[in-house]
């Protein structure tokens, strides 16, 4: 059936039929790929420009509408050998990019000023101990003021604005003492220069800004990197729906473009794109992503179904509805609202430090001035010394202490396949003492696999798996993932609801239900004693084999569970699935505490009960039913295959088929937290040494410069240890097979591999499901 593809929501229209679109591209790895795609596209008639941003793995295309369209461009990229996914740019990303540019400009200005002022300052320091005349020194000070004042006015904006915002809200943040220190240092220096004094602090003020801007920029750069990556993943995952138009025609549209009231066709093997009520057709649907239940549910006209379920047997037509009262989604959202409202706001370490730090520093400075006055010093001298105290305590090291660790830890997590949603997640992950796991899709792989506990002849498996490539049934899809040679047999015929048959090497082979495979096949002997698996039978030349398809544990789940328990964490399994399906999994992992058959409200109740006992809970889950529990927990993780709503409430996502990222998240976060505390301690020690010197009135600009840069470097170097420590000592090497997402490419492929059964529009009619991008166990 010819089906038109509607990509208009991704395309930006310009003047005179010019259009622009951004795509996330998979598999771009080298200079050759860039050239192949760019040259291949610009050769097409109508394409004005195509440019790849290799850092972001994105392609920007401009074209004229009258000669080619968006679908044609995607098809052309496919023809060149790459998968491209249209990309709806998010506003947050654009804001971030503007912010990064602005910080970089401030950084450049501060860097320029710091270098030039230091050039003049060093001359003055040298001249003060040799033969510099007062006129020359004054000239150098005025020149410094000429450079430093405009530069500080420009480069200090990020701090001044944030400090003003905090003061207006009647709060103190770290930017308040920073701004105050910089402004006072500059004002004092101008006054001293005008009165021909020997010391001015222009270099201290501007150097402080430079160091702090470095920290700000690195922090933002790290956040941007993860956000761009998450954006690419989202477009990779973006699903398409078959919309039935009023005219009876079928259009493929992005799920985001569906509106309530639209009619949608869902074919067997596809994911249900939106919540809705079934208008026609009967089928069984797998709701494991919604409720955690692994047994398919029979549905027919009038039944309400949820986005994320997989349609197993028959084609369904449904009407998209907004979540109605009494539905599961409505209950989940009600619980979510309550959980978010009840969530205790954890105060971040940096803010706690700032709230304590600023009053202490300002009180010390005031007391110093008063003390010197009482001791008989002049008003001028007392104020100069008090301001010197403010300058030396300006929280340069303190303001770098925590962001520096966060940047390094976030980078380490990113390489380990964990994408953080927010910066303070690291601190909360570190405090966790209990981990609650969902079962389906979290401890087990999101898609069912072939049970390997029984002996399987590899030849038969390969043939059955290759035959399964020609079927759309989810059971066959699980088998098909095992095919080494990913070419379907020619002439394979699928009989809907029964199975596939093809002639292999001159003999007819069948794959499907036992009945379909012939009367000689015994009625599934294993089914009677095993209710957690589904069975699929393969028959060829009189010989038959039956494969058990079931939820399989993530390959390293046992080792990770052991390692987590060894680190003193209490593990709990909470599942919406039947007890018969949950208990064996918990047993195998050695987790004693497990509860099954829970509704979303019961899951969240368990989390609250744990919290009441004073436990800090990390919730790891993927289902829609887990979303309220994720929001209620102290910290939360989701696999990248999780339902949309669930991902939105997780602190971090993890990629790939392995459970190891959970362990890594906890280990790196704990390490990071201890380094943050070390850094704060270092900053305190620095102040304990420097403040008495300043109070005694002995601080010269030279001492201030050495002390400030020295302490900043010390905390930054200490922060780098978060990276050294993170990459070792995790789990035994045997399970250390996480696809190293060192580059975006590997991580993208791993993510793509774990995002199976994503129905991407097939532009050419293909009989086979789209093969996975790359099997990560390969």
């Amino acid at each position, binding site marked *: 059936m010819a089906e038109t593809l509607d990509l208009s929501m991704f395309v930006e229209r310009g003047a005179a039929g010019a259009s622009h679109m951004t795509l996330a591209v998979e598999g771009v790895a080298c200079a*050759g790929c860039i*050239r192949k795609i760019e040259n291949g596209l610009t050769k097409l008639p109508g394409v004005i420009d195509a440019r*790849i941003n*290799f*850092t972001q793995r994105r392609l920007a295309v401009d074209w004229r509408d009258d000669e080619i369209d968006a679908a044609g461009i995607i098809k052309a990229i496919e023809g060149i050998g790459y998968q491209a996914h249209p990309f709806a740019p998010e506003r947050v990303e654009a804001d971030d990019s503007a912010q990064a540019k602005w910080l970089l400009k401030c950084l450049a200005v501060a860097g*320029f000023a710091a270098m030039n002022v230091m050039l003049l300052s060093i001359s003055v320091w040298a001249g003060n101990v040799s033969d510099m005349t007062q006129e*020359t020194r004054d000239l150098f000070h005025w020149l410094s003021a000429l450079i430093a004042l405009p530069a500080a006015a420009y480069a200090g904006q990020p701090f001044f604005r944030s400090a003003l915002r905090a003061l207006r809200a009647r709060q103190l943040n770290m930017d308040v003492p920073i701004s105050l220190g910089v402004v006072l240092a500059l004002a004092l220096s101008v006054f001293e220069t005008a009165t021909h004094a020997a010391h001015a602090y222009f270099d201290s003020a501007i150097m402080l800004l430079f160091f702090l801007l470095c920290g700000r920029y690195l922090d933002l750069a790290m956040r941007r990197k993860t956000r761009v990556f998450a954006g690419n993943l989202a477009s990779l995952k973006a699903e398409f729906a078959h919309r039935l138009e009023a005219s009876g025609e079928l259009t493929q549209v992005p799920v985001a473009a569906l509106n309530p009231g639209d009619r949608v066709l869902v074919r067997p093997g596809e994911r249900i794109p939106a919540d809705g009520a079934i208008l026609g057709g009967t089928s069984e649907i797998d709701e494991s992503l919604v409720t955690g239940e692994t047994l398919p549910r029979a549905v027919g006209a009038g039944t309400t179904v949820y986005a994320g379920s997989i349609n197993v047997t028959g084609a369904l037509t449904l009407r998209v509805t907004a979540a109605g009262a009494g539905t599961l989604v409505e209950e989940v959202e009600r619980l979510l609202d309550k959980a978010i409202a009840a969530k205790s706001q954890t105060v971040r370490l940096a803010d706690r430090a700032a709230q304590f730090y600023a009053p202490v520093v300002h009180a010390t400075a005031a007391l110093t001035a008063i003390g010197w006055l009482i001791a008989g010093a002049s008003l001028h001298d007392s104020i100069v010394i008090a301001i010197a105290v403010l300058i030396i305590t300006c929280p340069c090291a303190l303001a770098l202490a925590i962001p520096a660790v966060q940047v390094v830890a976030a980078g380490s997590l990113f390489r380990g396949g964990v994408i953080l949603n927010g910066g303070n997640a690291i601190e909360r992950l570190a405090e966790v003492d209990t981990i609650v796991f969902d079962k389906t899709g979290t401890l087990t792989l999101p898609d069912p696999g072939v049970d390997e506990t029984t002996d399987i002849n590899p030849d038969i498996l390969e043939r059955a798996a290759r035959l399964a490539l020609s079927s759309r049934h989810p059971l066959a899809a699980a088998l098909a993932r095992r095919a080494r040679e990913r070419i379907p047999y020619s002439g394979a015929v699928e009989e809907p609801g029964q199975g596939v048959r093809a002639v292999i090497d001159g003999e007819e082979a069948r794959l499907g239900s036992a009945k379909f495979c012939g009367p000689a096949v015994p009625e599934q002997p294993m089914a009677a004693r095993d209710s957690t698996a589904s069975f699929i039978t393969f028959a060829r030349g009189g010989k038959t084999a039956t494969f058990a398809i079931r939820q399989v544990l993530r390959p390293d789940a046992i080792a990770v569970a052991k390692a987590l328990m060894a680190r003193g964490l209490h593990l709990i399994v909470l599942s919406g699935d039947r007890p018969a399906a949950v208990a064996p999994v918990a047993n195998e992992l050695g987790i004693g505490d497990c509860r099954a058959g829970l509704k979303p409200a019961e899951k969240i109740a368990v989390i609250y009960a744990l919290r009441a006992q004073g436990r800090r809970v990390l919730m790891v889950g993927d289902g829609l039913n887990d979303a309220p529990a994720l929001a209620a927990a102290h910290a939360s993780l989701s696999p990248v295959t999780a339902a949309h709503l669930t991902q939105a409430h997780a602190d971090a996502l993890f990629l790939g088929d392995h459970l190891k990222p959970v362990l890594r998240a906890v280990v790196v976060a704990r390490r990071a937290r201890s380094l943050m505390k070390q850094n704060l301690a270092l900053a305190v020690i620095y102040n304990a040494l420097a403040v008495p010197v300043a109070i005694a009135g002995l601080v010269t600009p030279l001492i201030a410069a050495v002390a400030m840069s020295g302490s900043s470097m010390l905390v930054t170097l200490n922060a780098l240890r978060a990276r050294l420590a993170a990459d070792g000592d995790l789990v035994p090497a045997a399970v250390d097979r996480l696809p190293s997402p060192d580059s975006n490419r590997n991580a993208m492929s791993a993510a793509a591999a774990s995002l199976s059964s994503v129905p991407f529009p097939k532009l050419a009619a293909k009989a086979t499901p789209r093969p996975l991008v790359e099997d990560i166990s390969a």
Partner: protein
Amino acid sequence: MNVLIYLVPMALLLGLTGLAGFLWSLKSGQYDDLDGAALRILPDDDIEN
């Protein structure tokens, strides 16, 4: 010390030129794709035989 009269402005001018150069390169998007720039110099299909 009269030499300072032209040495200092020269030093400042050189520094400002560098700053202006950086701001221009930032504005023209040269830092948008650092990894890509490293790879784009490799193909030599722009050389005519």
